[in-house]
């Protein structure tokens, strides 16, 4: 390597400017020095370690689900992030995997085949068959998509996802169970043992995830990965540069389908049953939120997004934990964004003071205005009782506050400097009141709104996600 000359120093100034300063910069530089497979080993070790600590049932389910969705996000990343194809029917492949496994591991196929007990294949046979089938379906969808540009592709695949749901819900009730699904599935078994516990399936998906990450990283660095990414960047140029664009697109669909199907088989086995409602649009949007948040085009991003979004969504389902989540995120955002520390302290003090003042005023006006129950339980609830304004019938109040907070947030984006900080104070207080009176009462819906919000906000603010790299596109 020749010593760096002036030209190179100038040429690299852009890279230097992009690097972070301070502890985050040191961290990212250290991260870059480590090999990819070393990072993977660390991740695997962390995963195993987590499995060893005594987690309760709920935490085990959360862990299993987050790794499962990480796998789904990684698979989606192949189609959307690398090949640049907007596949909105991805959920159907997840469903094909789950239903396929269900059909081969239960009594469901009894009437179709002459075997009276249905086809109960050993896992080592069932899973590969399902994967191959999913890959073929992926190819067919890919072939159909060849004619379509980005927008049409999205709609056609969306329809395909819908058609899958309609199919398993309405068609062939005897074999597919209709909306009662297929139950009593065999767990994953083989070599004399079987996996029945959630923690067992956690290890299964962890192993799958680690192997998948390694395999896909190697694939991405190879000619196939370059071909996909070239197709995403400029399809026409790729075609004239020896890349068989159509074959590459079909291959991307196929690979993504197989990954989703694999996740589907584990999902079905862990749950012990499959229902059509497991594969509807909200789940698809959840997977997209995982990928978009974590970083489209990055394996690590997909995993991070999968873990983060699922953990958040599941935490919102638990009344004791949701308060930690909500207030934790707000505090985190404040600590991250408000600098220097004097401003931060002032803002926090202002929020607290504003709240008590509002509470006192509301209480003076009407006793029932503050008599309602807070949504948060435990010590958070009791601490906030005298701070938030929650009327007795808080539903409509909460709804109106929700709209107010959304509008306020939009307004805050347009403001700058001190004015923005001043506006943030009441906004956060109203958000807390809204949370206590309405959102924490219906956390499932709140979770869904949050997920939709992730898509909207990320695309506007940081389209490449947390771990993705900024892209340049010629539009």
């Amino acid at each position, binding site marked *: 390597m020749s010593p760096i000359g002036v030209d190179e120093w100038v040429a690299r100034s852009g890279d230097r400017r992009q690097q972070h300063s301070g502890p985050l910069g040191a961290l990212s530089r250290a991260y870059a020095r480590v090999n990819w497979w070393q990072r993977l080993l660390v991740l695997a070790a962390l995963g195993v370690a987590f499995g060893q600590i005594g987690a309760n049932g709920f935490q085990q389910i959360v862990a299993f689900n987050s790794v499962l969705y990480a796998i789904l996000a990684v698979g989606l990343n192949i189609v*959307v992030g690398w090949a640049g194809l907007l596949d909105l029917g991805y959920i159907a492949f997840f469903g094909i995997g789950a239903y396929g496994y269900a059909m081969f591991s239960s009594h469901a196929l009894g009437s179709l085949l002459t075997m009276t007990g249905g086809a109960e294949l050993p896992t080592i046979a069932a899973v590969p068959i399902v994967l191959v089938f999913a890959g073929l379906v992926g190819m067919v969808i890919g072939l159909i998509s060849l004619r379509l540009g*980005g927008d049409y592709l999205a709609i056609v695949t969306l329809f395909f996802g819908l058609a899958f749901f309609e199919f398993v819900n309405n068609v062939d009730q005897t074999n597919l169970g209709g909306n009662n699904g297929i139950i009593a599935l065999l767990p994953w078994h083989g070599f004399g043992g079987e996996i029945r516990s959630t923690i067992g399936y956690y290890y299964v998906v962890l192993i799958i995830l680690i192997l998948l990450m390694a395999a896909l990283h190697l694939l991405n660095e190879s000619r196939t990965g370059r071909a996909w990414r070239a197709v995403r960047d400029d399809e026409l140029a790729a075609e004239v540069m020896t890349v068989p664009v159509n074959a590459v697109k079909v291959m991307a669909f196929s690979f993504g389908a197989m990954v989703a199907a694999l996740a589907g088989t584990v999902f079905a086995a862990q749950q012990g049953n499959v229902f059509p409602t497991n594969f509807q649009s*909200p789940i698809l949007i959840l997977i997209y939120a995982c990928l978009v948040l974590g970083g489209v085009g990055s394996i690590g991003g997909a995993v991070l997004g999968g873990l983060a979004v699922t953990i958040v969504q599941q935490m919102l389902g638990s009344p004791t934990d949701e308060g930690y989540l909500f207030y934790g995120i707000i505090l985190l955002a404040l600590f991250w964004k408000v600098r220097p520390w004097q401003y931060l302290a002032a803002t926090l003090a202002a929020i607290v003071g504003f709240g008590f003042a509002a509470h006192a005023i509301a209480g003076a006006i009407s006793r029932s205005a503050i008599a309602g129950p807070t949504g948060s339980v435990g010590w958070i609830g009791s601490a906030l009782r005298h701070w938030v304004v929650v009327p007795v019938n808080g539903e409509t109040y909460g709804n109106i506050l929700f709209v107010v907070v959304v509008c306020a947030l939009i307004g805050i984006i347009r403001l700058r400097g001190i004015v923005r900080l001043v506006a943030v104070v009441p906004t956060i207080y109203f958000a807390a009141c809204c949370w206590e009176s309405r959102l924490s009462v219906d956390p499932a819906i709140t979770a869904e709104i949050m997920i*939709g919000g992730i898509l909207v906000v990320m*695309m506007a603010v940081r389209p490449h996600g947390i771990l993705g790299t900024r892209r340049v596109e010629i539009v």
Partner: protein
Amino acid sequence: MQIFIQTLVNGLTTGSLYALIALGYTMVYGVLKLLNFAHGDLFMVGAFIGYFAIGWFGGPTALTIPVPLLVIIMLVIASLGVGGLGVAIERFAYRPLRNAPRIAPLITALGISFVLENAVLLFFGGLTRYYNTPAFIPFSISIHIDGVSIGIVNIIIFAGSIILMLGLTALVNRTVLGKSMRAVASDREAAEMLGINVDRTIAMTFFIGSALAGAAGVMYGLYANQVANLIGFLAGLKAFTAAVVGGIGSIPGAMIGGMFIGLCESFSLSYISTRYGDLFVFAILIAVMLVRPTGIFGQAPLQKV
């Protein structure tokens, strides 16, 4: 024969609704090259606004104003409300993404659709709300042909849609705003350089398209008698199919496509099976996409290599 005419009537009615929604899709696609997934949910919001409007005026059984006035007020309020919502969505969600890669606004639209569906769920719960139309619009007022009844609601919807579509055609072809819309749809940069206020034109396009969807929502409520937070999803998809079949970006295409899809769905429900109606529409879409991707009236975009 009876069944045939009844099916025809139903098909034209739902077809009118699909046409109105499809118009919004096609207009927005024309100016922004964006498929607004959230459009169907705007339809749903319109239906809800209509529902509450009935309540504001005394409820289905005790109306404080005459029925024709109520219907007109419902349509107006829903159109304005949903139109405004559409403009707000465009302003805050889509405008920052004007020059972003194509995938970004599509994902944003997906997110907004989801947020709208769940926000309505949060505010109003998941229970289906009933317009209770027969209570104030007597279904017995209808034209009878050969034992087939064409209810007054069908006539309202069909006639109303035709009026709105004629109005829209006049707007697009005869007014300056219409010309601006066509210019922006053709080449946004050039339009801007020629002094057309592109932001305002796009906002107006969204307003009109969303207003049409809102009106369609009210009409749907009157016709089907019930509204729930997920009606927008499926209606939106079918209306989108209509827009594509007719040629996305083409206004007459959306109208014809809407009628076509409505009739197809109606006939497949009558003569094939009630369970496969949606799948049938899906099959039509695939067929059109494979055979003539640009639709009936659409034009393939020219790309300079």
